[in-house]
């Protein structure tokens, strides 16, 4: 099982102009802990919508790579978006689900994946080109390479430990998060 902070930090090392969308709660905190960046779009709400924000961004910017980092609860709530992404086949989109099989923000109630519901299998059935689970930190480098160079749509279920880690709080003002992202991307 992975240490979530260490895994996300390794994914985002030397990220260049990778565009990152992070799901509400712990995933946003993990991305912030790896280092604040103007090309991070941090969500603090809109549960279930993270993957679709990634799709809209990937379609708009085929010249960039887009990485969605989110939790199993958010992905399950928006599970239909896997089918929607499967239709569009964005080559530049990767989704990384930080899967601890629990709803961490609400008291660690078990999620569907705890009962064996198979998210990578769902993604494959939805025509993702690559979909697999990883659980060893040595695999982080390969996942990082997929984010930058793999042919999407890509789906990674990162099996992380069931642990509480300290919160690292980034910007919370939605206007500021959006404007910083847009200004940076469009002047790059």
């Amino acid at each position: 099982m992975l240490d979530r902070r260490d895994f996300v930090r390794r994914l985002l090392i030397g990220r260049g102009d990778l565009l990152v969308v992070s799901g509400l709660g712990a995933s946003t905190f993990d991305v912030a802990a790896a280092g604040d960046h103007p090309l991070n779009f941090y969500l603090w709400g809109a549960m279930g919508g993270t993957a679709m924000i990634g799709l809209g961004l990937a379609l708009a910017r085929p010249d960039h790579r887009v990485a969605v980092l989110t939790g199993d609860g958010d992905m399950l709530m928006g599970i239909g978006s896997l089918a929607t992404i499967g239709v569009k086949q964005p080559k530049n989109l990767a989704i990384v689900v930080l899967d601890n099989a629990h709803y961490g923000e609400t008291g660690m109630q078990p999620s569907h994946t705890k009962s064996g519901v198979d998210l990578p299998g769902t993604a494959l059935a939805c025509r993702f080109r690559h979909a697999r689970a990883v659980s060893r930190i040595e695999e982080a480098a390969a996942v990082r390479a997929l984010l930058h160079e793999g042919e999407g749509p890509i789906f990674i279920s990162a099996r992380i430990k069931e642990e509480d880690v300290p919160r690292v709080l980034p910007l919370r003002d939605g206007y500021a998060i959006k404007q910083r992202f847009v200004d940076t991307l469009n002047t790059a």
Partner: protein
Amino acid sequence: MHSPIETSWPDAIFAQLRRVGIRQVGYVPDAGHSRLIALCRADPDIADVVLTTEEEGVGLVAGAALGGQRAALLMQSSGVGNCINMFSLLRNCGFACVLLVTMRGEFGEFNQWQVPMGSITGDVLRLSGFLTYRVDNAEDVDEIVGAGCDMAFDGNLQVAFLLSQRLIGRKQWTR
């Protein structure tokens, strides 16, 4: 038989979407929007995104805007109810949104199961922060949709158009 003006309102909407530079259109298939959907699908400059549920489209609009593209959403009035929490993304971040809603559950609706949502669609949109414009006549479509699109994209506002059941025609139950 339809008169020319009745069959051209989707074309008028499409022309306005083109004028303001819409590059992505998210939709849940809908009979009232069938011509507009076909026009969007046939346009190589527009990415058409068929959604499994309407709230996916709210995320699509936000993602498109982050990437510098304008998007529009097409849905039936029932779909507005599916979006309520996701609309908070638009307000929290000031994402422009153009939402074209074909109305059910009003004016001659044959299926009463459409009425509970159709009768509150406009109120739900207003409570969710949308400027909401109702269109009853085909000859008003161009002007109202054009003005609303400009408000949305000039001001980063959320604008919804309710295309009334009188405009789109009562759904015929018998085939």
